[in-house]
Each structure stands twice: as structure tokens, then as C-alpha cells.
């Protein structure tokens, strides 16, 4: 009797189903590069479409070279990005210069396309403070290592923009694992409560190191976590540059019109390991799964799409590849030429005005460094 009564009051399964239905995946380009959702097509010129493809190809090369440079010991910390080009670059492509990016540790490509010089990205990887000295006017902050910290900070940046009455947004990225953090919820909830112009992107590549997304949460989508903050959430095909672009562009429109934040979940995949620090994805991923996602490669489908429009060819792609390789070579050279760090450098960056203990230690190390 009791259970019958409860069921009448509270239809648990239906409630979950109804919630999940509201977060079905937005896709515009299928795996063959065919437009499957004409109504959602973003307004992009041929030049813009070509530029987006250039950036994606360039970034794939950057990833390949970074892995190789890391293996040669010429780069340090590196979190591979191959597979996430649509998710990372089409979302950045939807931004304006005045928008502020708070990246996670895998989100170096967005910073580069927002204006961070490549050699500085390499210095970040190696562990040199000059890599984090973002040029004035480039609205990004260095990659966040504490998963979730960027989310609460983004709420603050967005509130600041709202208070200054700027027509700009704060955008931040985390992964599927990151959506389990307290700061993920707090950041979204704060931005919602303050109706701040923030975009929260969760790049769901199905794995947090070795832990599959199913072990992070019983929720069927990450997008639906927006409901807890009372803000809109959308799940998009993260291997589809047009779907990612249009979702972020629309979230941006809402934000600058004072309608508050949005959560965007991109379904994506990293072809490489978690980081280059000894992670071996064959321990936790099957070849079948890898093959399934390689068929979804954002470059493949976008190439087909542009090819059919007659605005992309092999020659153009090879030119991008050569340019990328050239740029990377120069950037590594510039990173090599950067003066080594000293302890007095590190001390000098601690405070505007050094407290007594650091003044004393500065003198000690100055003396050491002069020998």
C-alpha cells in the first residue's frame, strides 16, 4: 500500500526521463559533413568557415608537434588536445576580443587563438613565469591546474563585467570529471544568482584520466546540471564545429543582453593520453571506442563540408600545415632564447612591495646570483 501511495505522488522515473529529454544533443554536421539541422546553421561567411578550418588543422599539428617535442624533452607539462578541436576552437571562434577566457589545463589552444603568443604557451609548458605574462589586451589568464577553481573565478569576472556595464562575457572550460567538483556547482550557481554574463563549457571527453564519465555521476547528461543553478544548459556534438559555434554564440548573445549564464556541454574525445606524464589510455579505453570516436573526427567532417562547398582543398590544408610547423619551430627557438629564471625574479613577483622577510632573502640571493 505504502509504495503505491508514494508512486502516485512521485513518479521518479518519469521525472528523470522528462529532464533528460530536454538535453538532447544539438548537431548540425554529421560525420559525413552533411548538414542535418539547417535551421540551426550559424551565419558564417566562406572566409570565416575557412579560417575556422585553418585553426583546427593548425591546432592538430600543434598537438602532434607538442607531443613530439615533449618526448624529446623540449617541452614539459602537456595535455593533448587532438579530437577536441571543434570543442575548443569553434567555441573560441564565437568570442570577441573583449571576452575573458579562464581556461583549464587542456585549454591552451583557446588562449593562443585569443592572442597568447605561441612561444609563451611553450614557456608555460616548460614552467617559466614569462609564459604566464599574458600580453596587455589579451583577456585570458594562465591555465588553471586546480579543477573547478576557474569556474568560481569566472562568476567573479562575469559579475565584474556586468558591474562595468561591458558588452562582454567570461568563458571558462572544464572537463567531465570537473563537473563533480563543488566549485563547478558554486560557480554556476553564483553566476545564476547574480545573472552574470558567463559561459561554462564542459568538454565531456568521457574520461577523467582513467575514470569514465559514468563513474562521475548518475546524471545522464552534464548539461542537465544547469538545472541545479536555474540556468539554461545545452548539450552539443563536440566533434561538430558548427554546433559548438552556434551554441556558444547564442550563449554569448543571451549573456551580453543581460539574460545570465549558460552551461554548454560538448561531447568530445581526446585521441591521446590524459597528459604526457606517463598516462597510458590503453589501460582504460578499448580500441573499439577509439575507432568509434575517430570516425567522428571534427577535421574529417568539416573538411568534407567545406570541400563540398568548394572552399577547401588539399593545397590549402598543406599550406596551413607548413605554416604551423614553421611557427612552432620559431616559437620553440624563442622559448629557448628566453633568459633563465632566477630566485630574485621569483621573489620580485610575489608582492607589489616586498615584505621584510623577502627583502632580506632578495639580498641573499642577489649576492649568490652575482657570483
Amino acid at each position: 500500500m505504502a509504495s503505491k501511495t508514494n508512486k502516485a505522488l512521485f513518479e521518479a522515473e518519469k521525472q528523470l526521463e522528462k529532464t533528460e529529454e530536454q538535453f538532447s544533443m544539438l548537431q548540425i554536421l554529421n560525420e559525413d559533413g552533411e548538414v542535418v539541422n539547417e535551421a540551426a546553421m550559424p551565419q558564417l561567411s566562406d572566409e570565416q568557415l575557412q579560417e575556422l578550418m585553418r585553426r583546427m588543422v593548425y591546432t592538430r599539428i600543434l598537438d602532434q608537434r607538442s607531443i613530439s617535442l615533449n618526448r624529446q624533452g623540449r617541452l614539459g607539462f602537456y595535455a593533448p588536445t587532438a579530437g577536441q578541436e571543434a570543442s575548443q576552437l569553434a567555441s573560441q571562434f564565437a568570442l570577441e576580443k573583449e571576452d575573458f577566457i579562464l581556461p583549464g589545463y587542456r585549454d591552451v589552444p583557446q588562449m593562443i587563438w585569443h592572442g597568447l603568443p605561441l612561444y609563451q604557451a611553450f614557456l608555460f609548458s616548460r614552467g617559466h613565469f614569462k609564459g604566464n605574462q599574458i600580453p596587455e589586451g589579451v583577456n585570458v589568464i594562465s591555465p588553471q591546474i586546480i579543477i573547478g577553481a576557474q569556474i568560481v573565478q569566472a562568476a567573479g569576472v562575469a559579475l565584474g563585467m556586468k558591474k562595468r556595464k561591458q558588452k562582454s562575457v567570461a568563458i571558462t572550460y572544464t572537463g567531465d570529471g570537473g563537473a563533480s567538483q563543488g566549485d563547478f556547482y558554486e560557480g554556476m550557481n553564483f553566476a545564476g544568482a547574480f545573472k552574470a554574463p558567463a559561459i561554462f563549457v564542459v568538454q565531456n571527453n568521457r574520461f577523467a584520466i582513467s575514470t569514465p564519465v559514468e563513474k562521475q555521476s548518475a546524471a545522464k547528461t552534464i548539461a542537465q546540471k544547469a538545472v541545479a543553478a536555474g540556468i539554461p544548459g545545452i548539450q552539443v556534438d563536440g566533434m561538430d564545429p558548427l554546433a559548438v559555434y552556434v551554441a556558444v554564440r547564442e550563449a554569448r548573445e543571451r549573456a551580453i543582453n543581460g539574460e545570465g549564464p549558460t552551461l554548454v556541454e560538448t561531447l568530445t574525445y581526446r585521441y591521446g593520453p590524459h597528459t604526457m606524464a606517463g598516462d597510458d589510455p590503453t589501460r582504460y579505453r578499448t580500441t573499439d571506442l577509439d575507432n568509434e570516436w575517430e570516425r567522428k573526427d571534427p577535421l574529417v567532417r568539416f573538411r568534407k563540408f567545406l570541400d563540398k562547398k568548394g572552399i577547401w582543398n588539399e593545397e590549402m590544408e598543406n599550406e596551413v600545415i607548413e605554416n604551423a610547423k614553421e611557427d612552432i619551430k620559431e616559437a620553440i627557438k624563442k622559448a629557448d632564447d628566453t633568459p633563465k629564471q632566477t630566485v630574485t625574479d621569483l621573489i620580485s613577483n610575489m608582492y607589489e612591495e616586498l615584505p621584510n622577510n623577502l627583502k632580506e632573502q632578495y639580498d641573499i640571493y642577489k649576492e649568490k646570483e652575482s657570483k
Partner: protein
Amino acid sequence: MAQMTMIQAITDALRTELRNDPDVLVFGEDVGVNGGVFRATEGLQKEFGEDRVFDTPLAESGIGGLAIGLGLQGFRPVMEIQFFGFVFEVMDSISGQMARMRYRSGGRYHSPVTIRSPFGGGVHTPELHADSLEGLMVQQPGLKVVIPSTPYDAKGLLISAIRDNDPVIFLEHMKLYRSFRQEVPEEEYTIPLGKADVKREGTDLTIVTYGAMVQESLKAAEELAKEGHSVEVIDLRTVAPIDIEAIVASVEKTGRAIVVQEAQRQAGVGANIVAEINDRAILNLEAPVLRVTAPDTVFAFSQAEAVWLPNYKDIIDTANKVLSF
């Protein structure tokens, strides 16, 4: 001049800086229309509006992140943590993030944040309200930690803290909020951070202390004077960085010292001060530097505060040990 309690002096400092600098923002849990759980922000939202003085959702980590983000947008955030026992929720935003902002960005960004938070025993608060956790914060490079003990110091130090372009933790002892009044200038003034203050001059023994233990130390010094001992009481006012110069100058004069803190012996900043004295003035010492602290247990259940918290009697006992060593 006006007779003010410490809480009034704090409100006065906040009002002064809200007036002086349009980028100053005051926010936290119940600091707006309610005026704060201790009335520290009373009347400020009414005077400066909801855009400047506002409530937040109940989430300390979010408040810390909000302060960092607002700092990145050129604001000067003054955030409140309702009780410092709740700092554990926001340790990453403080120690992991804002303390490192200037360094990690090579000076490109900074965090001009002031964190106000009450702490301290003697007023029978419930669990995790009164704990002295300044010792955790002083171990984090990039922070400054200020603990005033008088209304006059509170106002001048808070104005300095807010104007500082690096993060400052400003800890307000609950027992001192309304325990006495003092003449406080109505106009603005600053007290430099990192500078101690000699609250009583003496020649036989140096007491280095801060927070509520300043009043206890002064009381002890008064008693010790009756026995013919001349005790100097140094109020650190800033516990990170420590004013080593002032401490060493006093120890060189007296040749004997004790350090008094409300925190447990394994916590606080006492051990740090003893080590600095040993490094810099050992040849001046007539006796070892001893410490007065709480016992190394979790903060007392409220009914046990009286037997647990250090007081002037403990200070007299330890002073006598050092004086007769």
C-alpha cells in the same frame, strides 16, 4: 575624535574606503541589508547601494572565487567569511589562488582582496566559530595577515589592508568587538602593515603577542609591575610578515622574552617568533624564550573555554619562569 568600539572603528574604515574608492566592493553572507551578523557593515548598503555592498549565496569557496574574478576586472573586493572556522571551505581560493595570482602571472594580474573574518574565544560560540587559524594562513607565501587588538589599530590597519594591492587577511577577534571603547580619529588615517606596536614599555621582559592576548598581557604586566618587574608588551598587529626589527630591538634591551598566543601550541605563530629570536638575538638572551598557548586539543566546547583559553594568570606564571631562570 570619537569614542568607538572596535566594531564601530571597522565600520568606519569600510565607510571611509567605500567613499574614497568607487572600486571597493563589500560582500559576503548577510553583510547587506542585515548589516552583518556583528553589525560590522551596518548602514553601508543603505549609504552606498546594493551595487557596492551586497549579499552572496551561502558558499565560502564561491565568495573567494567571486573576489578573485572581481579583482581581475579591476575591483577592490572586501569579502567577509562569516566565521574564520569556515575558511577550510575557501582555502583553495585564498591560499591556492589569490595568494599566488601576482607570482603565477609574473605580475600581469594581482588580487587586491581584503578578507575580513571574525574569530576568537571567550564568548561561548558554537563549534568552529572561535578557532585561531592564523597559523595556517601565515604559512602561505603571497598573503599578509593582520590581527588588530584595539579600535584605533583596527581602523588604520583596515584602511591600509584595503588599499594594499595584494591579498590581506584581516582577522577580527570577537571578544574585542565591543569589550572597550577608545578614542578613534574621525578622519582617515593608515597604519603600515607589518609594523608592531609597543603597547607598554619595559626593561626586564618582552612579551610578544597579538589579538585578545594583548589585553591579557597588559593585565599580566600590570600585576608583574607590582612585584617590581618592568614588562614590555609588543602587539604584533600583523602576524605575516612579522616586525622582526621591533621584536629584536626589544629583546636586545630586556634580554628575556615570552610569546603569547590564544592558538594551540602546535598552531599560531609563536614557534616562528621564537625561531626568529633564536636566529637573531641569542647572545642577548638571559633565558630561553617560552610560549603561552592553548593546549593541543581541538578548540574547547564552549563551557570549557575558561579552563582552556590562556589568560593573564598563565602569562604571569610563564613570565616568572623566564624572569627567575
